[in-house]
C-alpha cells in the first residue's frame, strides 16, 4: 500500500515538473528588467518554502517525540530534516547563481542570506550530532531538542526580509504583499512548482522513512542475535 502511494506521488511530481518546466522555459516571456535569469526564482522560492515546511514538520515531530517517546516520530524528524537540508542547499546555490548575474557577486552578508546560512549550518550540525551519539533513545532525545532550537532560526529567516532592510528582494508572493508585486501568470507558475517540489520532497521523505524503519528492524535483529 505504502509502496503504491510512493509511486503515485512520484509519478504526479514527475508529470508536474515536466509541465512546469515547459511553462517556465517556453510559456513565460523574459522578465523586463532581469532578462532570462529571473526563471531561477521558480525553483528558488518553492525550494525555500519546501525546506521551511520540512523543518517545521521536523520541529513538530521532535516535540511529539519528546512528549510521547515514540521512535516513529524520531524517524520522521531525521527524514524530513535530511530532505529539507538538501532543499536548503538548492536555495543557497540557486540564490548565489542569481546574485552573481544580477548583483555581480556570489554572496553578500545581509540578514536574509546570513540567517539562511546559519539555518543550513544548524541543521548540518543536527546531522553531525546524530552521528556522534550511538545510543538510539539518547540520540532521538538530544536531536529532538536541537531540532526545536534550530527551528527558531527558520522563523528569523522567514521574517528577515520584513525586519531588516536587506539586499535580498522583499516579499513578492501576494499572500504576503496583498498582490501587485508580480504578474499573475508568473505567480501561478511559482505555486505550481511549489506543489511539484512539495510532492517530490514528500516522496523523498517517505523513502527515507522506510529506510529508517528498516534500519531499526535490522538493529533489533542484530541485538537479538547478540543476545542469543
Amino acid at each position, binding site marked *: 500500500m505504502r509502496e503504491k502511494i510512493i509511486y503515485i506521488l512520484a509519478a504526479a511530481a514527475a508529470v508536474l515538473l515536466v509541465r512546469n518546466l515547459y511553462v517556465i522555459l517556453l510559456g513565460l516571456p523574459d522578465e523586463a528588467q532581469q532578462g532570462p535569469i529571473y526563471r531561477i526564482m521558480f525553483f528558488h522560492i518553492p525550494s525555500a518554502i519546501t525546506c521551511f515546511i520540512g523543518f517545521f514538520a521536523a520541529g513538530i515531530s521532535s516535540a511529539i517525540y*519528546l512528549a510521547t517517546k515514540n521512535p516513529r516520530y524520531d524517524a520522521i524528524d531525521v527524514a524530513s530534516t535530511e530532505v529539507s537540508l538538501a532543499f536548503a542547499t538548492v536555495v543557497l546555490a540557486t540564490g548565489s547563481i542569481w546574485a552573481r548575474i544580477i548583483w555581480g557577486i556570489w554572496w553578500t552578508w545581509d540578514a536574509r542570506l546570513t540567517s539562511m546560512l546559519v539555518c543550513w549550518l544548524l541543521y548540518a550540525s543536527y546531522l553531525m550530532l546524530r552521528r556522534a551519539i550511538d545510543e538510539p533513545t539518547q540520540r532521538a532525545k*538530544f536531536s529532538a531538542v536541537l531540532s526545536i532550537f534550530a527551528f527558531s532560526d527558520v522563523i528569523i529567516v522567514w521574517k528577515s526580509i520584513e525586519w531588516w532592510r536587506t539586499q535580498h528582494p522583499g516579499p513578492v508572493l501576494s499572500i504576503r504583499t496583498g498582490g501587485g508585486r508580480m504578474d499573475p501568470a508568473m505567480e501561478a507558475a511559482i505555486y505550481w512548482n511549489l506543489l511539484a517540489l512539495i510532492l517530490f520532497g514528500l516522496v523523498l521523505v517517505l523513502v527515507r522513512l522506510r529506510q529508517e524503519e528498516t534500519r531499526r528492524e535490522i538493529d533489533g535483529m542484530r541485538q537479538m542475535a547478540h543476545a542469543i
Partner: protein
Amino acid sequence: MQQTKQRGAMSWVGNVAVIFGKDLRAELRTKEALHASLSFALVILLLFSFAFDPSAEQTHDIAGGLLWIVYAFAGTLILNRSFVRELPNDCLDGLIAAPIPAWTLFLGKSLANFVLVLAVELISLPIFGIFYNVRWAQQGWALLLVLALTTWGLTVVGTMFSALTVNLRIRELMLPILIYPIMIPALLGAMEVTGPLIAGKPLEGDLLTWVRLLVGFDIIFTSLSVALVSTKQKG
C-alpha cells in the same frame, strides 16, 4: 517530589541557590575552568594585536566584534566544564536522581556559569582597554547591562547544550559547532551595541533596538530551555 511541593512556592528558589552555590564552590576550589578560560582570553587578545594594528582608529570600530569573539570562545571553555565536572564519581547520576525538578538544576547551573563567564569578561575588559588603548568605561553601566544580557543568553544556550553533549566522546568538538550558530542573533546584537558603547555613544535610538533583540533572545531561549528540560525529565 511531593515533599518539595509541600515546602511551598519558594522552595525552587532554594533548590536553584543550592545548585548555584555548589557549582561556584566547586569551581572556586580548583579554579581550573576559570584559569583556562582567562588565559585563553588573554592569548586571543594577544593574537588579535598581530592581526589588527592596535593603535589604528579602525580597531576601535571593530572593538565590539573582537571582544565578543574572545568572550564566546573563552565562555565555551567554562560551559564545557560545567557538566564534565560532574562525571567523576558519578556525580551527574546523583544530581539527576536528586528529588528536585530538573529545571531548577538547569537554572542553578546556568546561574553559576553566568557568574563565571561574566567574571572572565569583566577581568579581560580592562586588559583589553590597556592593550588596545581604548577608554571603555565612558558608558560603564550601559556596557554592563549589555554584557549581562548577552552573557545570560550565551550561558542558557551553552548550559543546555553542555548537558546534551556531556556523554559524547567528542563533546569538546560538538559543543562549539552546536552553540555558535544558535547564539548568532545574540552575538550579532552584542557586537552592534558594544562597539558604539565603547566609543562613548549613549544607549539610545538604533542601539536600543539591538538591546531589545538581546532581551527577546534571553526570554525565548530561557523559556524554551526550561520547557524542554522539564519534558526530558518525564521520559
